């Protein structure tokens, strides 16, 4: 009974992904914004870092996903994150993929957000010599939407002042 209800919930989420569109967000039958990567980046377009909280076990997930990785729950609520955190590890990329060549050398890292989840990204507006594990960073968002598929607006991290 319990499992079939969960599967039904998942089916609802999946079946509606292609159907509804509200301010660019993909919604389910009840008009809720579904916890997908596409919707995560739609929020980024509005300069918001959003995650989802599992209604059942309260685990906060960012980036969001439809099935809680801790308890397999499928009920969720969106939560805005402050976008602040500390640098867990990093590297400086000297030999980048083609589309990033103009930026090299550039720093990337993994940030432990204050609310708990980890998020990777580029670290900008920093002197590469100042990179250090443990430094405080905050999120910012590019104002332009990339032209290439999948057109996700990019977030990045910068030193917290």
């Amino acid at each position, binding site marked *: 009974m319990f499992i079939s209800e969960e599967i039904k919930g998942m089916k609802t989420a999946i079946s509606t992904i292609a159907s509804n569109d509200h301010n660019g967000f993909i919604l389910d039958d009840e008009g809720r914004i579904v916890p997908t990567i596409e919707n995560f980046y739609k929020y980024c377009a509005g300069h918001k870092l959003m995650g989802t909280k599992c209604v059942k076990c309260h685990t906060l997930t960012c980036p969001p996903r439809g099935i809680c990785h801790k308890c397999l729950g499928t009920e969720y609520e969106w939560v805005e994150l402050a976008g602040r955190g500390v640098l867990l590890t990093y590297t400086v990329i000297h*030999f*980048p993929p083609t589309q990033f060549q103009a930026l090299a050398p550039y720093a990337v890292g993994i940030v432990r957000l204050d609310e708990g989840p980890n998020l990777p990204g580029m670290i900008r507006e920093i002197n590469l010599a100042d990179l250090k594990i443990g430094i405080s960073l905050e999120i910012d968002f590019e104002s332009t939407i990339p032209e290439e598929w999948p057109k996700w607006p990019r977030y990045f991290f910068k030193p917290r002042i």
Partner: protein
Amino acid sequence: MTRKPIASIVSAGISKFGAREGLYCRELFAEAAKEAFDGCPNLDPRRDIQALFVGMMSEAYEHQAHVAPLFLDWIGLLPIPAFRTEGACASSSVALRTAIFSIASGAFDVVLVGGAEKMTHLSTTGVTEILGMASDFAFEQWHGISFPGIFGMIAVDHIHKYGTTEEQLAKVAVKNHEHGALNPKAHFQKRISIDDVLSSRPVAWPLKLYDCCPRSDGASCLILTSPSIAKKFTDTPVNIIGTGQAQDTLGLFERDDFSSMKVTKLAAEQAYKMAAIEPDDIHVAELHDCFTIAELIAYEDLGFCKPGQGGRLIDEGATYLGGKIPVNTSGGLKAKGHPVGATGTAQAYEMYMQLTNQAGKRQVAGAEIGLTENLGGSASTGVVHVYQRGD
């Protein structure tokens, strides 16, 4: 002590690894298969081989999907069933496990298992981008995090936590080139110095060019049988006595620990238990040195040393030929080369050569038990096998 075999390798083959200009996967695979067939005169491939299992990472390299029937056709074995597995750089280790299960299930008695990849016709940038597809597109690739970048972040974490040095990383490359110089099938057969590594150009700090394995073309394969009939084909089979596999998140960022590969620990736990061995029982090992840091971490995760002591183990020389536990006698991914789909069964090929005393100048004297460890992606797939000579 003879352990319970799960499957037996009765012959093995490998193509020359390197820049094989004008040769494509199907031809490289046929080159490897020829060596395996020639090495087993008691086997009639058409009469005896019942299925083919192959690993290949990506169609993008040579614009060719559906390679299982293609490879099968090119070795003249149509129309037996052929299966392809994909696990990034662990593709043919996953194929090997699938082949083992097919034998253990009783479905087949004799199968061919292998892998191939063709990479050198593309630019380094092109290859790096295809390899990068094994990382998380939405949160790693999209933000400019290259594949070497992921291992760069792993290395920074290990250095920060344990004081590992760039010289210790460099020693992995130096050792594996030294071993590769003894392997006529290796991509690189020349020695390099610590200074060569340290002064090579930066790729993803602290990883430099010589901390990274090359792009290579190559193929490898094994003839695998049920243990009960192995002696029909050879007096000196090599038995697989343990196998393990585990998976982790595709994104490195979603893990609790960047300095240890959970998949290696879990896969090793399964394989050690099945084989009833301890790390100390292993005489020779082939480990996944896609980047030098990965080999040091593998020492730790496999229990060759304590967590954080990988750098010290290479300082002591324990993993050189002649050391306590020689690692990557083939030259490893670093010097032998890393045609990704071929790597898993190429590691098993080296075990077959070592445990049948055919490894020539790189032979580990008296080797009876060996281990291979193969990672896919940033350790989202981990596979470990344990082998024992079966004569």
